[in-house]
């Protein structure tokens, strides 16, 4: 039967679409009126006055109207009779493609500083290696670390930043109180964080899903508040500065006679330190990835994935869920601690401001958007989300379009939040939604993520 024959005539359909879009515009007007139209500003008497900005409201309403109309037209347009490909690649092809992609990505990462140097020159390259390369790699590492807890064991942890903070503060305090160097602090910070992972994991063993998420959030906030208020040890809001940078087998990266440049007979530039830091974090991230991939094949890794799928079945089969959960918390936290230690050494200064809930949310978003359990997905999500928001700092040309008081960097987190919502709606299962089982009977087969439960543990 012809479906189009039963449709109302085109003119009435268009009228209905316009009416619908007008309704959307009206809603947009209602949303925009107070918040967008009137800006509260303090005048010289420190009293609030209102500034009207009706043009913004007009733009918002027009955008809503046009957007809704286009959406309706697109939805009403007769579909081509081509069958929709079932979500892209077949699992087998995806797995091969994933491997090629991973190899290519690794080569690209190793060569990234060279490319940056070639394209931006030695002065411009520092920014690209530091703000993009190192920054993104820290989040890749955090994402991979949290992936053990969330992606493999299915324990939703919204307080991961606590372990990042423990790692960073352990490093800072060890340096200041005992004079340790970075390379000694790094493993100690990881051990401290893993210890805290067990400490905080122990009380929440019985919790699952959203409740677990909220309790871990509370723990993360408690640790941050203690860091703020325990002034004698942590120096409160003022933070701790003067954390030494990593050394190259004992050779510091400075302009002195014992510095890296002098020892190797090179001219001093801060570039060497940035390059070194880039390769350090790259190595740390790759170690995280390698350990995770190996752990997945061990009994404990299989127990994690079994736990994610069904905790009760897991227990019935005699798996010790307590130990399984605690190892996941400990190992995930340990990698968070390594990342924190690196962060402290890279910045040279830490304060509680760097360890807010927003950071936890960022890392969880990276893991979930990447497709929980998928290492490559997490890396892609980290590059997209962190790189995407960092690049807004660089878009100065937008000032010429929108006027000189337009500051693209202010919209970073706004767009980040919006991207989280839109990506979730677009791909609720994350970017890479297929996964390979770590053990299989007879033939290798990937499981579509729709058939995999998660976040229940």
């Amino acid at each position: 039967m012809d479906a189009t024959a039963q449709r109302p005539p085109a003119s009435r359909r268009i009228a209905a679409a316009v009416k619908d879009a007008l309704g959307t515009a009206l809603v947009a007007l209602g949303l925009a009126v107070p918040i967008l139209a009137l800006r509260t500003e303090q005048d010289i008497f420190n009293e609030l006055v209102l500034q009207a900005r009706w043009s913004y409201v007009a733009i918002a309403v027009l955008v809503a109207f046009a957007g809704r109309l286009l959406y309706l037209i697109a939805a009403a347009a007769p579909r081509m009779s081509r069958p929709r490909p079932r979500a892209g690649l077949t699992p087998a092809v995806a797995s091969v493609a994933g491997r090629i992609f991973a190899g290519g990505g690794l080569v690209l990462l190793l060569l990234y500083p060279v490319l940056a140097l070639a394209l931006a020159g030695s002065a411009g390259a520092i920014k690209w290696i530091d703000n993009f390369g190192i920054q993104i790699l820290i989040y890749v590492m955090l994402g991979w670390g949290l992936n053990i807890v969330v992606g493999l064991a299915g324990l939703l942890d919204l307080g991961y930043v606590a372990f990042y903070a423990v790692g960073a503060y352990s490093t800072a305090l060890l340096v200041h109180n005992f004079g340790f160097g970075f390379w000694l602090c790094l493993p100690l910070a990881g051990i401290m964080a893993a210890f805290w992972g067990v400490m905080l994991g122990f009380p929440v063993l019985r919790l699952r899903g959203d409740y677990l998420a909220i309790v871990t959030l509370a723990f993360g906030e408690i640790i941050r508040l203690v860091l703020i208020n325990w002034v004698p040890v942590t120096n409160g809001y003022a933070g701790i500065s003067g954390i030494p940078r990593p050394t190259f087998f004992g050779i510091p990266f400075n302009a002195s006679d014992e510095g890296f440049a002098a020892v190797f007979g090179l001219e001093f530039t801060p570039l060497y330190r940035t390059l070194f830091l880039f390769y350090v974090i790259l190595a740390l991230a790759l170690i995280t990835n390698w350990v995770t991939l190996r752990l997945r094949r061990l009994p404990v890794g299989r127990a994690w994935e079994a736990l994610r799928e069904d905790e009760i079945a897991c227990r019935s089969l005699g798996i010790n869920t307590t130990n399984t959960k605690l190892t996941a918390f400990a190992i995930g936290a340990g990698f968070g601690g390594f990342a924190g230690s690196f962060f402290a050494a890279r910045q040279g200064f830490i304060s509680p401001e760097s360890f807010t809930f927003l950071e936890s949310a960022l890392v969880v978003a990276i893991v979930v958007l990447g497709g929980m359990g998928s290492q490559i997905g997490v890396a892609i999500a980290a590059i997209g989300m962190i790189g995407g928001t960092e690049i807004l700092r660089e878009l100065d040309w937008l000032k010429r379009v929108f006027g000189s008081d337009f500051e693209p960097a202010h919209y970073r987190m706004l767009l980040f939040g919006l991207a989280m919502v839109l990506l979730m709606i677009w791909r609720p299962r994350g970017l890479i939604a297929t996964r390979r089982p770590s053990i299989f009977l007879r033939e290798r087969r990937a499981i579509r993520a729709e058939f995999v439960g998660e976040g229940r543990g």
Partner: protein
Amino acid sequence: MEYFVQQLINGITLGSIYGLIAIGYTMVFGIIGMVNFAHGDVFMLSTFIALIFLLVLTQILGIGSLAVALFIVLILCMLLTSLWAWVIERLAYRPLRGSHRLAPLISAIGMSIFLSNLVQVTQGPRNKPSPSFLPGVIALSEGGGDGYAVTLSYKQILIVAVTAVLLVAFWYVVQRTALGRAQRACEQDRRMAALLGVDVDKTISLTFVMGAALAAVAGLLFLIYYGVVHFNDGFVPGVKAFTAAVLGGIGSLPGAVLGGLLIGLIETLWSAYFSIDYKDVATFSILAVTLVFLPSGLLGKPEVEKV
């Protein structure tokens, strides 16, 4: 003794505000089993809407009567905040219903980040002091031997009275109207309710709208009480109100109010007698301890897991 009574009064006032926000969390969790992470930021948004309308009425339209101005602001603030919540539910949560359970949580966290940054971008990052209202106080005691006078401000009376009236009205809606019945039906079994002709989508939307309307009342009261708002004010009150909902037993309306009052009292007394720096630590610890040892809360029903 006077000091203690004063803290009790302050605690109940604060607890009323938390209770109003907590109802939004508890209802949404009851009906779709989701922690509406953006609820705290919806509350923050409502404080800004209230502030802006107060300024419009007093500065531009020049309405002299405070009672009239507050009433108009209350209505407008409830309407517009509800509209926001309705749109958020439509755009960010409804497409994810029936997806795996982390998806709406992540979407809600994204929405929370979006809302607080939207307010920061459009209204500026600074504290916004509101014009002061109802400065009067009633002295309940003359100040005893230690010279400490217990006072009850008009603001506090207003806050507790508005909360009480709204709770009665709200209780009536949930217990006695068709909408309330539909809500309770969806809470018990969404599929069965749909089969029996309940419009589940509409009921869920209205649940979000009602929660946001109560959060808007809390927003206006918060603005009147503290006299200053900030774009970051959604997170901590949001988590505290969620703690209240958990403490009272998530899914239970009287529990949310009871939890709110308890959290308000605990926070005030902790600040008064122990350490004001660690008052948020106290609340967060209560959240953790309740969830670990008493997951069904004070008035909640225990969750039975079927295999």
